C-alpha cells in the first residue's frame, strides 16, 4: 500500500467522514468539507507530472489475490495521469459549483457520498493495470452514475433515465468482462502491460475478434456511441453538477480511455480500426444533427457531448492505424495528439457550458431555449462564458477547440490518402463525414449563443433573470479562462501532458516533441475546411426555419429510444408471463421443481458416467448411531402423520438436535455446536412465525398429488445416499485437509482447524457469507416493513 493507493481511495475514506458530518453539522454547506478531497488529489497528481514525463511510468504493486492474478497494480503513465488530473481537477471545480447549485435542503449527504465513490471508481479505472480491478471500478462508476441520475428519485423521469443508463452501461460492462476473459484465455494474464507484451499471441489467436467486439461494446456503451448513445440524453435528469462532471467531462470518457489503453493490443486488427473509425464518425454526424433539434439546453449539450465523443473515438481509430503501421507515420501520430488534446479541450469547454446551463436554469427557472432570449444585458458574465466556450466547441479561432478541430480535420484528410485496407476506396468518406458533423456542430453552437442571449427578451421565464452569485460563477470562469489560455498557448500542454499520453497510446518510447501551431499556411486543406464549415454553418443557421422540417420525417417509431422502450416493455411482459406460469405461490410446488430437477439431472448424469460404489473401508455402525437413526425415523414418521403444526415443528427440532449429536459422535464438535445453536434459533423463529402462518389450506390431496411427491422424495433420498456412498468410495485426489492439518499452526498460529479455515485460509468466503447474511437480514427488514405499511395482505394466503 503506497501513497498513490491511498490517494485513489481517499474519496471513499472521506465519504465515510462526510456521511458522519452530514448527520451532525447542519449550518455549513456540506460541499465545503468535500472540496479539499479532490483538490488535494489534484495537487498531488500535478506533482507527479514531471516524474512521469521524464522518468516514464510509475508502477506500484498491491497484491489483492495474487494466486488468481487479481491485484491492484497502480500504473501511472501519461494517459492515466491525464485522465486522473481531469477527474480530480474538474471534480474540485464541480464540487465548488455544486455548493452554489444545491441548497442545504437537498439530501446533500447522499449526493456527496455518491460523488466521492464515483471519484475513487474513476481514478481506479485510469490508474490501473489489472483488468479485473478495472472491471470492478468500471461497474462502480455505473452504479454511482445510476445513483446520481436518480438523485431526485421522486421524479419519474429521473428513475427512467437512471434505469436506462444502468441497463445499457451494465450490459456493456458485462460484455467487456467477457472480452477481458477472452484476452486472459489467449495471453494467460490479467495485466494490460503483459498483454501488450504478448501481442503476438493475440494476433495469432482465432479468439481475438471476440475480444475486440466485446471490449468495444463496453467502450461504446460507456462513451455513448451510436447506437448506444440513447442513455446519455436521459441521464440529463441528474443535477447539473453531475451532468457536467460524469456525463460530459469524465465518466463518458472512460470508454475513450479503454479504447486508448487497448490500442497497442488491438491495433493490428482491421475490425478494431474500422468499428472505432466508423462508429465514431457516425456518432459525430448523427448526434450533432440531432442536437440542433433539441429545445432543452441540457438536451443540446447531451447530444453535443455524444457527437464530440464520437469525434475523439474516430481520432483514436486513426491512431490505431498509427500503431499498426509504426509510430513514425506522422499522419497518424497527429490523430492521437489531436485525440488527447480534444479530450482536454472538451472537458474544459463542455464542463463550462454545462455549468452555464445550470446557472441559466437556476436563475431563470427554465432550460427551454424557446422560453429564453435576450439575456445578454441581464447576464453578461454568463454570456461571455457561453460565447467563448460555444465558439471553442464550434472550432472558431483563437480558442482551443479550433486547434484540436483543425488537427482532427487534418487527420481525416490525411487518412483518405493512406492506403491501408481493401476498403481504402471508401476512405474519401471520412473527411466528408467529419466536415458534415462539424457543420452541424457549428449550427447548434450558434443556436446556443443566439437563442439564449440575443433576440427579444422573453418574459415567460418562471423566475426574474439576473446574474448568478459568485459561487456559481467561479468554476465556469476558471474553465472558460482555460479555454482561452489553451487556445493561445497550446504548447504549455503539449510537452507536459499531451506527449506522454500520446506516447502511451502509441506504445512508443520515442519523444514526439509535438508543436501545436495556429497557422499551417494556405495549402492546408483543413484551413479551407474550417472556412467552409463557418460559411455553410452560418448560412444554415440563418435559414434554419426553411430546412428544420426534415426533422419531422424522423418519426417516433423509427428511433432507437422507441426500440429500447418496446424492448423493455416486452421483456417485462414476457418475463411476467413466464413467471406467472411457474410461480404458483405454493412453496410445495417450488420444492417439487427443485427436487424434480435435482433427481432428473442426477439420473441423467449417472447414466453417462456410472456410479461406482465400494463398501470396503466403511466403519461399523455403533449402538448410539442406531438409536439416533431410530429417533430421526420416528420423528419423520410423526411429522408425516400429524395434522398439528406445533408437533411438526417440535419434531423437526428433534431431528436437528439428533443431527447435532451425530456430529458430536463423529468428533466434529464445531459442527455440532453450530448445528445446536442454529437449531435453537430456527425453532424459536418457527414458533415466533407461528401466529402468522396461514390456516392449513383445504388443498385436496389427490392420489396423483401424493404419488408425485412420493416419487420425488424417494428419488431425492436415493440420489443423496448413492452420491454420498459414491463420493466416499472414490477418492480421486488427496484431500486438502492434510494441508490444513500441517499448516494450521505454522501459518495461522491456531489450534482449531475448522475455525482457522473460516477466518484465515478461507477468509474470503467467510467475508462474503457474512455480507450475504447481513444483506439477507436487511432485506427481510425491508420486506417486512413494506408489508406492514401496505394494506395488501393477499400474499399471506400463499405463504
Amino acid at each position, binding site marked *: 500500500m503506497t501513497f498513490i493507493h491511498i490517494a485513489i481511495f481517499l474519496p471513499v475514506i472521506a465519504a465515510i467522514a462526510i456521511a458522519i458530518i452530514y448527520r451532525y453539522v447542519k449550518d455549513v454547506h456540506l460541499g465545503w468539507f468535500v472540496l479539499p478531497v479532490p483538490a488535494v488529489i489534484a495537487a498531488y497528481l500535478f506533482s507527479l507530472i514531471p516524474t512521469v514525463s521524464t522518468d516514464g511510468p510509475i508502477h506500484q504493486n498491491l497484491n489483492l489475490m495474487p494466486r488468481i492474478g487479481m491485484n491492484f497494480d497502480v500504473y501511472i503513465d501519461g494517459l492515466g495521469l491525464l485522465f486522473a488530473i481531469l477527474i480530480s481537477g474538474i471534480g474540485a471545480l464541480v464540487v465548488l459549483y455544486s455548493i452554489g447549485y444545491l441548497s442545504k435542503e437537498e439530501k446533500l449527504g447522499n449526493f456527496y457520498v455518491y460523488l466521492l465513490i464515483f471519484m475513487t471508481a474513476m481514478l481506479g479505472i485510469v490508474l490501473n493495470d489489472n483488468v479485473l480491478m478495472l472491471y470492478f471500478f468500471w461497474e462502480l462508476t455505473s452504479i454511482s452514475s445510476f445513483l446520481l441520475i436518480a438523485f431526485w428519485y421522486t421524479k419519474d423521469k429521473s428513475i427512467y433515465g437512471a434505469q436506462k443508463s444502468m441497463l445499457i452501461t451494465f450490459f456493456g460492462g458485462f460484455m467487456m468482462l467477457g472480452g477481458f476473459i477472452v484476452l486472459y484465455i489467449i495471453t494467460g494474464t490479467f495485466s494490460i502491460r503483459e498483454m501488450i507484451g504478448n501481442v503476438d499471441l493475440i494476433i495469432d489467436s482465432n479468439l481475438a475478434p471476440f475480444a475486440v467486439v466485446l471490449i468495444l461494446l463496453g467502450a461504446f456503451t460507456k462513451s455513448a456511441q451510436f447506437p448506444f448513445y440513447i442513455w446519455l440524453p436521459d441521464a440529463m435528469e441528474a443535477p447539473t453538477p453531475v451532468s457536467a462532471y460524469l456525463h460530459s467531462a469524465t465518466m463518458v470518457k472512460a470508454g475513450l480511455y479503454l479504447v486508448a489503453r487497448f490500442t497497442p493490443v488491438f491495433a493490428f486488427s482491421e475490425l478494431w480500426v474500422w468499428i472505432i473509425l466508423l462508429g465514431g464518425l457516425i456518432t459525430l454526424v448523427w448526434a450533432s444533427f440531432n442536437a440542433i433539434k433539441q429545445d432543452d439546453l441540457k438536451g443540446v449539450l447531451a447530444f453535443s457531448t455524444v457527437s464530440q465523443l464520437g469525434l475523439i473515438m474516430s481520432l483514436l481509430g486513426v491512431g490505431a492505424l498509427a500503431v499498426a503501421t509504426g509510430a513514425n507515420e506522422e499522419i497518424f501520430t497527429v490523430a492521437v495528439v489531436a485525440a488527447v488534446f480534444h479530450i482536454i479541450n472538451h472537458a474544459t469547454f463542455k464542463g463550462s457550458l454545462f455549468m452555464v446551463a445550470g446557472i441559466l436554469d437556476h436563475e431563470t427557472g427554465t432550460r427551454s431555449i424557446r422560453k429564453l432570449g435576450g439575456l445578454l444585458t441581464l447576464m453578461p458574465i454568463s454570456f461571455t462564458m457561453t460565447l467563448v466556450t460555444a465558439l471553442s466547441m464550434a472550432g472558431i479561432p483563437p480558442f482551443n477547440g479550433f486547434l484540436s478541430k483543425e488537427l482532427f480535420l487534418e487527420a481525416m484528410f490525411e487518412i483518405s490518402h493512406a492506403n491501408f485496407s481493401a476498403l481504402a476506396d471508401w476512405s474519401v468518406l471520412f473527411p466528408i463525414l467529419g466536415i458534415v458533423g462539424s457543420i452541424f456542430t457549428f449550427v447548434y453552437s450558434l443556436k446556443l449563443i443566439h437563442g439564449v442571449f440575443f433576440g427579444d427578451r422573453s418574459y415567460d421565464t418562471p423566475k426574474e433573470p439576473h446574474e448568478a452569485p459568485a459561487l456559481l460563477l467561479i468554476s465556469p470562469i476558471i474553465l472558460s479562462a482555460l479555454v482561452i489560455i489553451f487556445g493561445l498557448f497550446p504548447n504549455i500542454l503539449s510537452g507536459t501532458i499531451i506527449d506522454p499520453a500520446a506516447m502511451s497510446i502509441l506504445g512508443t518510447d520515442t519523444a514526439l516533441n509535438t508543436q501545436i501551431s495556429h497557422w499551417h499556411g494556405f495549402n492546408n486543406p483543413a484551413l479551407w475546411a474550417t472556412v467552409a464549415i463557418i460559411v455553410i454553418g452560418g448560412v444554415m443557421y440563418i435559414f434554419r426555419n426553411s430546412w428544420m422540417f426534415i426533422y419531422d420525417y424522423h418519426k417516433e417509431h423509427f428511433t432507437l429510444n422507441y426500440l429500447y422502450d418496446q424492448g423493455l416493455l416486452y421483456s417485462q411482459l414476457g418475463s411476467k408471463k413466464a413467471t406467472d406460469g411457474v410461480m404458483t405461490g405454493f412453496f410445495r410446488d417450488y420444492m417439487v421443481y427443485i427436487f424434480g430437477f435435482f433427481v432428473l439431472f442426477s439420473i441423467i448424469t449417472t447414466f453417462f458416467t456410472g456410479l461406482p460404489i465400494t463398501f470396503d473401508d466403511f466403519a461399523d455402525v455403533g449402538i448410539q448411531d442406531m438409536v439416533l437413526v431410530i429417533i430421526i425415523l420416528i420423528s419423520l414418521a410423526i411429522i408425516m402423520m400429524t395434522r398439528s403444526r406445533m408437533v411438526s415443528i417440535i419434531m423437526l427440532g428433534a431431528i436437528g438436535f439428533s443431527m447435532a449429536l451425530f456430529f458430536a459422535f463423529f468428533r466434529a464438535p464445531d459442527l455440532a455446536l453450530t448445528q445446536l445453536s442454529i437449531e435453537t434459533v430456527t425453532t424459536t423463529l418457527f414458533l415466533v412465525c407461528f401466529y402468522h402462518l396461514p390456516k392449513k389450506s383445504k388443498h385436496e390431496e389427490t392420489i396423483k398429488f401424493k404419488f408425485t411427491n412420493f416419487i420425488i422424495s424417494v428419488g431425492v433420498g436415493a440420489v443423496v445416499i448413492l452420491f454420498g456412498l459414491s463420493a466416499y468410495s472414490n477418492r480421486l485426489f488427496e484431500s486438502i485437509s492434510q494441508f490444513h492439518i500441517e499448516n494450521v499452526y505454522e501459518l495461522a498460529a491456531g*489450534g482449531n482447524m475448522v475455525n482457522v479455515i473460516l477466518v484465515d485460509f478461507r477468509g474470503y468466503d467467510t467475508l462474503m457469507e457474512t455480507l450475504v447474511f447481513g444483506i439477507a437480514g436487511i432485506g427481510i427488514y425491508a420486506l417486512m416493513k413494506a408489508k406492514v405499511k401496505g394494506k395488501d395482505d393477499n400474499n399471506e394466503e400463499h405463504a
Partner: protein
Amino acid sequence: MKSTLKRAGYSKVQRQMNDVFIQFTGRVIFLIILLFSVNMFLAGHYEPGGGFVGGLLAASAVILLLIAFDFETVRKMIPINFHLIISIGLFLAIAVPTALYFFGVPFFTHQHTYIDVPIFGEVALHTAVAFDIGVFMTVAGTALLIVSLVGGMDD
C-alpha cells in the same frame, strides 16, 4: 411470545400473565449464555467455537429474554439498534482484511504475534480475532433483527 399466546386463546396478553419463573431465571440464564458465547468466541482459534457460533449464542440469549418478556420490554432492557450492530460488524469484516495492507502483505493474510503479559503468561495476538468480531456482530445482529421483526410484526 405474545402472538403465540394470542393464538392459543389469550385475547389480551398482559405482562403479568407470563410465567414469573421463566422471567426470573431468564434474566440469570441470559447472562450465563452471554458469557458462554463470549467464551465460545474467544476459544475459537484453539478449541471449538468462533464468531459464527458465538454470535448465534449471543442472539439466542436475547431470544430467551424475548420469550420470557415481551418485545417492548426487551427493547427497553437492551436499547441497541440491531442495524447498527450489523453495520459495525460488516465494517469490521471488511476493514480488518483491508487494514492488513499496512503490514505489507496481501489482502486477508492475517498477522499474529505473541506477547508476555504478567500473570497470564504468553498471550497470542491475532488480527483474525478482529475479523471474527465482525462476523460475531453481523450474525448476532441479523439473527436478532429477523426474530424481533417477525415477533414484533403484529403490533
